[in-house]
């Protein structure tokens, strides 16, 4: 074997080998802001899970003689108009925000990715039809849709007429403290952006030579999608999704603020701000805690998203 003799022998490299994912993780851990954000978000998730253990009171328990109590020994951050502990309610409120952040982003990522990858990979007429449908849904005013949906289901349940599927949905929603409609509302809208992004990514990668090489070898469509396309396109999608999470949290807060979100007495930061906002001048401590929590959480997700983007795509570093 004439060729084999020419094999270049190199010293065993001291450098540890790193996969592209390992490299991205390394880059992320070197970004202090992103790491702090990640720690903050992890803490928040823990708070959400262990709220019953940490919180000094139950979120619905209050005594009217303590209403509008200022921060003090009994209520660390004060009490609201019904005398409920604001600290406890803020801690419980993390549950709603974190659920929205996780469920809504997973739903929109999964649905959007599936639709986008199919559309981009199959191409041609299928692509054309799917993308036109996406365009049509995109043009629909989302707030109107959410209001109509909520009004319809809530009116049904109030009149006690709900049966069948509608009844099941209402029951599920009340069990989730009114979060189900928020998930549906957010999920329905945001997969569209993900689908467009995923499709664009697939289109740019499917003409690459390594995909052609896989086809020339005889690899199946599924193998090309899962082994070749997905690992390459998932990075930007995760970044986009992380950067969308603040929007979801805000959307939930907004829906709760206008009274279309979670059902009272389930605490949500948006609902708490809405309640406290009426007495803002006299009792500013009512909205301080939820507002600060909301700000910090959205900031943390934004910084984490930025950090992920820098780590996954070093070429974009420093851009906005």
């Amino acid at each position: 074997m004439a060729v084999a003799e020419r094999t270049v022998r190199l010293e065993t490299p001291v450098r540890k080998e790193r996969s592209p994912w390992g490299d991205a993780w390394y880059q992320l851990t070197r970004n202090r802001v992103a790491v702090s954000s990640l720690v903050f978000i992890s803490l928040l998730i823990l708070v959400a899970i262990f709220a019953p253990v940490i919180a000094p009171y139950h979120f619905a328990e209050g005594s009217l003689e303590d209403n509008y109590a200022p921060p003090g020994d009994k209520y660390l951050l004060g009490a609201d108009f019904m005398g409920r502990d604001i600290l406890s309610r803020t801690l419980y409120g993390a549950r709603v925000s974190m659920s929205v952040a996780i469920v809504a982003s997973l739903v929109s990522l999964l649905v959007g990715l599936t639709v986008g990858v199919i559309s981009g990979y199959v191409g041609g007429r299928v692509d054309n039809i799917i993308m036109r449908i996406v365009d049509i849904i995109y043009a629909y005013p989302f707030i109107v849709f959410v209001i109509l949906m909520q009004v319809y289901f809530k009116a049904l349940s109030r009149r006690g007429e709900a049966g069948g599927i509608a009844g099941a949905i209402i029951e599920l929603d009340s069990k989730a403290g009114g979060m189900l409609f928020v998930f549906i509302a957010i999920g329905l809208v945001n997969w569209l952006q993900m689908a467009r992004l995923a499709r664009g990514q697939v289109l740019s990668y499917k003409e690459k030579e390594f995909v052609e090489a896989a086809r020339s070898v005889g690899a199946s469509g599924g193998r090309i999608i899962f082994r070749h396309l997905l690992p390459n396109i998932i990075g930007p999608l995760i970044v986009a999704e992380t950067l969308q999470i603040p929007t979801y949290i805000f959307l939930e807060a907004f829906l709760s603020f206008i009274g279309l979100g979670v059902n009272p007495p389930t605490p949500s930061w948006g609902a708490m701000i809405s309640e406290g906002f009426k007495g803002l001048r006299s009792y500013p401590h009512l909205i301080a805690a939820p507002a600060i929590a909301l700000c910090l959480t959205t900031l943390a997700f934004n910084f984490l998203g930025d950090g992920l983007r820098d780590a996954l795509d070093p070429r974009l570093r420093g851009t906005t």
Partner: protein
Amino acid sequence: MPENGILLNVENLKMWFPITQGIVIQRHVGDIKAVDGISFFIRRGETLGLVGESGCGKSTTGRAILQLYRPTAGEVYFEGENLCKLKGEKLRRMRRKMQMIFQDPYASLNPRMTVGNIIGEPLEVHNILKGKALKERVQELLRVVGLNPYFINRYPHEFSGGQRQRIGVARALAVNPSFIICDEPISALDVSIQAQIINLLEELQEQFGLTYLFIAHDLSVVRHISDRVAVMYLGKIVELTDRDTLYNDPKHPYTQALLSAVPIPDPFVEEKRRRIILEGDVPSPANPPKGCNFNTRCPVVMDICRENEPEFKDIGGEHWVACFRV
């Protein structure tokens, strides 16, 4: 029909890409005639060079032979089987026998896969080897193409262009193919690396009895590696003969012009070299000229060239030319 010893026989291959208009309802308004009726054969163990300028359909020809694009018309016989008629599993099985080496070693390796996974993919896809045997085979392939078997767990970005191209060669060799299409395998590499890859390809051909279709635009490289050479212009083969005849006695005016552009590394000969400068640009393959494809730029054009298409005929000794002057 193919005579004995012929591995690949291409007959009247056409690859037209449709041009469509309209957003929802797409109307067919024309075709890009990337490959427009070419015929040739390749004997077992030989190297056929395919040259021509950018955009003349060289790469498309290679991809259409491998059925990466489904040809519009024509036949591709590989070991007597018509690839254009094969589908699904049968075609997949044939893919084991023919592989491709790509032009750009930076685009042809998946950046998210290790070298081991890249080279082992053909073996996995065809369920040939698994687990430890697969790993050993990949290491052996790395050794064959002159890379350290230790590299198996590395990622493509850790390699130079030449090393990456070796990985591409190893992937093509993995399933022991008999036929490899080399699609400009060296044009993206440094000149100093080009020779290494060419030598590697030649050694592998000798070692494994490979047959190559070598696509390139570098005439001196093609001269070095090919047994026979085909010259393409605007989707058609204009001349096809053995290497020495082509380089010493080109018949087609396009071949003559092409060869006259090759610089000669000898100052005395170089001084006497007369370049034939072609006027104008290559016409669009969406709208090729009437008659001979080359008539818009041909220095010796005649009236008949603007009316009729010259036949691609054998002028003796397996020397095919498509020109009325011959």
